[in-house]
C-alpha cells in the first residue's frame, strides 16, 4: 500500500540538515506499524512526506501504486481526502462544535448534508462521544479531544490513518484508550502508521515496529519492541 524508495530529504537553510537518508520500506494493507525513534530521528519528516506536506529531495513515494512525491497543488486536496491524519496537538477547530469539527472533513469533500447527518453521529458513537455533539473542544478533556480528532480522520473512511505522536499530550490512561481505539480501527481494515515516543505503548501493542535513528532505518521487526 505504501512504498518508500530510496527517499532522501534534506532541509536547506543556514545549514543543510539530512532529515531522511535513503529510506526504503513497504507497508502492506491493514498493517499496524509503529514508527519510533528519538526526537530529530526523522519520524515527523517521514510522516510529512506521506501526507504530502513536504516533498522528498530525491527518491519516490507510492500510495496504492501512485507516485505522490510530486503532487500538483490541484491534486493535493484530493490525495489528502484519501488519508486521515491525527496529531499530538489534536488540531481541532476551537470555534466549531464537535459535530461541526467532524462534519468539516466531509463538507470539504462535497458530501451531502444527509450523509453528514448520518455519518457524523455514527463515528462519534464509535469514539464514545455521541453524547457531546454540541460541545466545543475547550469544554472536553485532552483524551476526548484526541478521540474527536480520530473521528474526523476516520469519518470519510480512508484506507490509511497517519498518527503523529497522538498520545504525546495525554496521561497514561487516556493514552492507552486512544491506542485501543486505533487498534480497533485497524481491526476494521484501516492501515495505521503510528509515530510515537511511548515505550509502554509500543511494547503493549506487539505489532510491527520501524526504528529510525539520524534519518536512517536501523531496525524493522514484525513483532517489535521499543529498543533504542
Amino acid at each position, binding site marked *: 500500500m505504501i512504498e518508500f524508495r530510496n527517499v532522501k530529504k534534506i532541509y536547506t537553510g543556514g545549514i543543510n540538515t539530512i532529515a531522511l537518508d535513503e529510506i526504503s520500506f513497504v507497508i502492506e494493507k491493514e498493517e499496524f506499524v509503529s514508527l519510533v525513534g528519538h526526537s530529530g530521528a526523522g519520524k515527523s519528516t517521514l510522516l510529512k512526506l506521506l*501526507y504530502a506536506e513536504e516533498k522528498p529531495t530525491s527518491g519516490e513515494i507510492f500510495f496504492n501504486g501512485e507516485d505522490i512525491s510530486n503532487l500538483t*497543488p*490541484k491534486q*493535493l*486536496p*484530493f*490525495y*489528502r*481526502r484519501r488519508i486521515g*491524519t491525527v496529531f499530538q496537538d489534536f*488540531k*481541532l*477547530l*476551537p*470555534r*466549531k462544535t464537535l459535530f461541526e469539527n467532524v462534519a*468539516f*472533513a466531509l*463538507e*470539504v*469533500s*462535497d458530501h*451531502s448534508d444527509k450523509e453528514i447527518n448520518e455519518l457524523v453521529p455514527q463515528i462519534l458513537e464509535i469514539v464514545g462521544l455521541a453524547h457531546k455533539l454540541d460541545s466545543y473542544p475547550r469544554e472536553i478533556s485532552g483524551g476526548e479531544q484526541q478521540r474527536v480528532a480520530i473521528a*474526523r480522520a476516520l469519518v470519510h473512511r480512508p484506507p490509511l490513518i497517519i498518527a503523529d505522536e497522538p498520545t504525546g499530550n495525554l496521561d497514561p490512561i487516556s493514552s492507552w484508550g486512544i491506542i485501543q481505539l486505533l487498534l480497533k480501527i485497524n481491526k476494521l481494515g484501516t492501515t495505521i502508521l503510528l509515530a510515537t515516543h511511548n515505550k509502554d505503548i509500543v511494547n503493549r501493542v506487539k505489532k510491527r515496529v520501524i526504528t529510525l535513528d539520524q534519518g536512517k532505518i536501523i531496525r524493522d521487526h514484525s513483532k517489535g519492541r521499543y529498543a533504542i
Partner: protein
Amino acid sequence: MLLLTLSRTFKSGFQHFRRNGWLSFAVISIISLTLLIISTLIVLSIAANLVIRSVQDKVDISVYFKSDTEESKIMEFRSTVLQYKEVKSADYVSKNRALDEFKAKNADNPTIMQSIDAIGDNPLNASVNIKAVTPDQYDTIATAVQNSAYKDYINRINYAKNKIVIERLNNVLSTTRNVGAMLATLFSLIAVLITFNAIRITIYAHRQEIEIMRLVGASNPYIRMPFIFEGIIYGTISAVVVMLFLFPLIKFVAPYLSGAVSVQEVQANFMHNLWLIFLIQLFTGVALGTISSLIAIRRYLKV
C-alpha cells in the same frame, strides 16, 4: 455541487463573522472609518461644487453699447459672440428692459424714481450680458470683444470691475481642486492600508483553521471562499453604518454653506446622490474586504 459549496462556504464565512464578535467589530469599525473618510470627501466635493457653481452663475461680463447703436447691430454682435466656443450664453438687455429692471430694483427709493421721471428720457444703455463656460475664459472673451468689429459701438465693458472677483474665484477653484484631490488620495491610501492590515490580522487569527482545512483535503478555493464572504459581510455592514452617520453629517454641514446655497439645495443634492453614494460605499467596502482577504490569505495557501 457548486451551489452546495457556495452555501457551505457562505455559512462558514458568516460563522467566522458571528463567532469572532470583537474582531468583526474592530474590522467593521476600521472599514467604516475608511468609508466615512471617503464619503466625507465626496460630500464635501458635492458641497464645494454647489458653492462654486452658484458663485459662477453670479459672475458675468456686460458689454454696454452707445445710446445711438441700432438694435439690429447689437443682435448681430450677440450672434457673433455666441459663436465663440468660450461663451455659454449672451443675453440682450434692451434700453427699456434695463430701465424696467432698474425701476423695479429701486421701487422703494422715491428720490431715484423722481429723478428718473425728471430726466424724462431713458438714460440707460442697452447691453449684452455674457457668461463664459469656465471662469478663466472671461479674460479671453473681454479681449476678443474689445478687438472685434463692433468696438466702435461699444460704450464700455465692465470686465475690469469684475476682473478681481473672477481671478480670485479662479484661484480658489484650482486650489480647492488640488488640495481636495491630494487629501482624498492621501486619506484613501491610509485608510486602505489600515483596512488591509486589519483583515490580515483576522486571517492570521484563522491560520490554524486554514492549516486544518488543508490537512483534511479542502481545495484552495474552498478555503478562500469563507474569507471572501466574510470580507463581503464586513463591507456591506460598514457601508450601512456609514450611511447612518452621513445623515447627521449632512445636516451639520449644510447650514455652513447656506450663505452661498440654500440648505434645502444641499440636502436635495445629497438625497439625489444617495443611492450613488451608497453604491460607491458598498462597492468600495466589499472590494476592500475581498481584495485584502485574497492577498492576506495567499501566503497560507502555498504548498
